[in-house]
């Protein structure tokens, strides 16, 4: 009886040890996993110094994933919450009755905005806005990124690889086409934090 228990306990312990070891291996593997990410300092849509040009949309056209694994992401800590956001509005469009541009910039209408705090109904210019990018609509075309970068904006919007979509190709098809070599491979922890 005692011997049976000992054997059972030993077997259970062995299984648990194998499971724990496997979990630790998986965690270690995930932390060390190499993934693709957009280097914002190389991407022509976000890097400083390049102004007055059309946005590059190779992340949209070259990715093997439908609608692209690259998305525009707004870093709220940097966002100016502007009344007239050049990434939201087409600032070159005619002004409407509210004194704002009459057209939006995003061809997929993937950016929504909502006022922050108490709205001043008398003066539309007197409000802050939060700008939210709908990842289901965004295809990473980069138009908003180009318009958000300094000096026109504050550079809060950049293109990022979304790991729930990226299939982690051995050689990224966007990189094959990118003249700036802006797709880089990084350990996943670093890719998420940069």
């Amino acid at each position, binding site marked *: 009886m005692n011997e049976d228990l000992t054997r059972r306990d030993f077997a259970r312990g062995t299984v648990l040890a194998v499971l724990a070891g496997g979990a630790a291996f998986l965690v270690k593997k995930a932390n060390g996993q190499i993934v693709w990410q957009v280097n914002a300092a190389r991407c022509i849509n976000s890097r400083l110094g390049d102004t007055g040009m059309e946005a590059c949309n190779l992340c949209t056209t070259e990715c093997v994933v439908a609608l692209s694994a690259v998305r525009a992401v707004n870093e709220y800590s940097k966002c100016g919450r*502007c009344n*007239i956001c*050049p990434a939201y509005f087409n*600032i070159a469009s005619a002004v409407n009755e509210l004194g704002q541009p009459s057209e939006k910039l995003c061809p997929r209408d993937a950016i929504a905005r909502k006022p922050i705090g108490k709205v001043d109904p008398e003066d539309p210019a*007197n409000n802050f806005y939060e700008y939210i990018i709908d990842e289901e609509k965004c295809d990473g075309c980069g138009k908003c990124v180009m318009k958000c970068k300094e*000096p026109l904006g504050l550079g809060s919007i950049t293109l990022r690889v979304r790991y729930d979509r990226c299939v982690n190709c051995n050689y990224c098809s966007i990189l094959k086409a990118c003249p700036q070599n802006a797709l880089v491979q990084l350990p996943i922890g670093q890719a998420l934090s940069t």
Partner: protein
Amino acid sequence: MQYRHVQVIDCKGAVHGIALDGHGRLYAAGDSGIKVFDAAGRFNERWPTSKPALAVAVASDGAVYAGEAGQIEIFDGAGKLLNTWRDAKLLGRVTAIGFTQDSVLAGDAADRAIRRFDRGGKFLNNIGKDNPVNGLLIPNGVVDFGVDAQGVIYAANPGKHRVERYSPGGELLGHIGRFDGLDPAGFTGCCNPTNVAIRDGIYTTEKAGPRVKAYDFSGKLLSVIATDLFDANCKNMSIAVDARGRVYVVDTVKAAILVFEQVKV
């Protein structure tokens, strides 16, 4: 009204703010000092400041005020440090300084407001703070303003695409300007105009793309003084106008001051 570009003054270092005195001398704040140029634009001397200088202004008595983070340093006309006003809360980041007859005004970009002090440095009141958004809308990170001969303060409110007029007591008197990405009379982008100067009218600078304009006091556009002479990445271009109507504008990328004068037609 038309202007022509007549001079480039190389500052050989960062320039954040400029000012002129009654003799046409030009003062440039940048790095950790004030650079002084004569009326012909020749470099004369440099006065060190204890912190990076973000703004400069010359009072009617010739004293030169340097705006910095957390303080204002006051020099005499020869560059001798006379006094330092320190206040981490009220002078968080001083990006503009101006004067009314009896007070000193400091633009605090850290709190998006203009502070009014008496000549001795005692705080009197805020300007541009009493509104639903609790201050001037400056995504560009700089408060700038000018003061007319009557003591009315003209503050750039770039997030609203306006220049707002305030009494020294802080009452909003009105504004000029509106958003328009097509009409040059309007201000475009997220946040323009960034900088303003007052003389016989209202002079403004804008970023993305860089643009210098003159308006009359009713807000009517008089002239687009310059557009394509500046580096496209310039922003927060400080501006000053001398008694002859010459307009001085900082190219923040090239670290230079471009001078324009009116063309007589």
